[in-house]
């Protein structure tokens, strides 16, 4: 299936699916996006954000692809109404059709690892193939503001916060090896041949049709920065880089 405007338009014609937010869940961040957690109509909790550096389109596409390859939680289009938001107005910046990333239990952003007490997390839990997959994924989609979650019980690594991806997709660029350090975990953990091959296989398994699906059926508007031309550009940019991930992660020393 070609990655072209006609194909994208065909998918867009189906319209986009929206998940209704029901009620605040109680957590929030003080980052650029000021995201808050909401329980949505599927019974799951999502981190909802109303703005992202490169538009909500980046967060949504990044999350869709992360879920597709198994590197991170899925992102969905969320509708937040005044009925679902706090009455004090503190969540009004999120009202409308925005994006949400599915919450995961027992995880911590590695940026917050300083808050851990000794014994709270065993670095030996980290699974090399899972880390290799996240390195391959973040290398592929060109994450600038790299963030990962670590499951403190299982050591599973997850890629999150893809809102600053796809900054310059107007010309094709080769991927750059992207590794997020994890306190207590050797920087080389995951660079064994088996883990690297498995990770590269997962990225290369994403088909052109899946790429078009990942950039299709997305709302329009200022906060989304999602005209069809840009989304098509992103799909082609990702298609170009997809086959180069294998050789780039092989340089991981």
């Amino acid at each position: 299936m070609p990655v072209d405007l006609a194909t994208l338009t065909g998918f867009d014609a189906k319209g986009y699916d929206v998940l209704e937010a029901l009620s605040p869940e109680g957590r929030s961040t003080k980052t650029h996006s000021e995201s808050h957690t909401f329980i949505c109509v599927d019974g799951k909790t999502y981190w909802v954000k109303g703005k992202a550096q490169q538009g909500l389109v980046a967060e949504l596409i990044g999350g869709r692809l992360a879920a597709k390859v198994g590197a991170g939680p899925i992102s969905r289009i969320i509708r937040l109404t005044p009925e679902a938001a706090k009455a004090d107005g503190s969540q009004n910046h999120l009202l409308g059709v925005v994006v949400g990333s599915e919450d995961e239990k027992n995880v911590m952003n590695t940026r917050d690892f300083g808050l851990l007490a000794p014994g709270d997390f065993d670095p030996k839990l980290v699974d090399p193939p899972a880390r290799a997959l996240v390195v391959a994924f973040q290398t592929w989609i060109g994450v600038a503001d790299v963030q990962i979650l670590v499951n403190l019980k299982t050591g599973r690594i997850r890629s999150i916060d893809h809102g600053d991806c796809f900054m310059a997709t107007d010309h094709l660029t080769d991927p750059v090896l992207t590794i997020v350090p994890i306190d207590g975990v050797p920087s080389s953990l995951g660079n064994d041949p088996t883990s690297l091959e498995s990770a590269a296989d997962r990225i290369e398994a994403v088909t052109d049709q899946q790429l078009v699906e990942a950039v299709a059926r997305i709302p329009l508007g200022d906060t989304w920065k999602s005209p069809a031309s840009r989304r098509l550009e992103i799909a082609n940019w990702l298609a170009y880089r997809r086959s180069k991930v294998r050789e780039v992660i092989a340089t991981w020393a």
Partner: protein
Amino acid sequence: MGVTVTERGFYSVVRWRSDATRDEARNVAVVLVDAEGQFGGIRIAPPSTLSNDARQQGFLDTILHGLELQFEGDKRPDLERLRKMSEALTQSLYLTSPRPTAVPDPDLTLQALYKAFVAPVGAPRALSKGVVIDKVVHTLRKRGFHVRRSEYVGEFVFDALVDRTEGILACDVLSFATATRDWIPAERDAGHFLYGLERLGLAGMAVIQPPTEESRDEASTSFARVRNWFEEASVPVHNPAELADQQLALPTP
């Protein structure tokens, strides 16, 4: 994107604190209302997931089913009623303060809140006796019967009691569909039931989940043994699924 009319509702989580000293509570149900009592409902966790104690299961079932019945009348509980319940119930069983929620659809919203706060997590449970009692009680209530769970009649406790104008029907519920090795407790259970039935002169019915292909040989042997006892005592034996059949007449005294 379809247009959804969203209303505002309020929900409380019903919590059960089996040991007030330890103050450890678990979520057992969620209640949804609106300001005027126009819509709402309650979703309850299966009693067998709430406690291993049959008497506690019966107690919780009685209280929670009582709440459930309030939503079946013409005048449903509204926000004021939910607030009063929240203020009045503060001991072993209590309700969290009502919180606002968007309600795109009352049933979907209740289901989502149940999934978020109450639904058991983890792998599906084995078809234990408690799980089968959940089904039996639910099925009989759905057929319109008034059913009490794990209650005594005189000196004898029964898994379920169906109150009818023609007299009480006592039910013994057994499951041989687990990996258990020791079936003596199940045989004692059946013996106790038959003895109690005879002493009290009640009508009785046995509902038995048969062994599965994965069950051990001992399960099949024990199943055949107790089924013979019930036949000899002229107590009808049914598979749980048969109870849903509206044509199935329940035994009379």
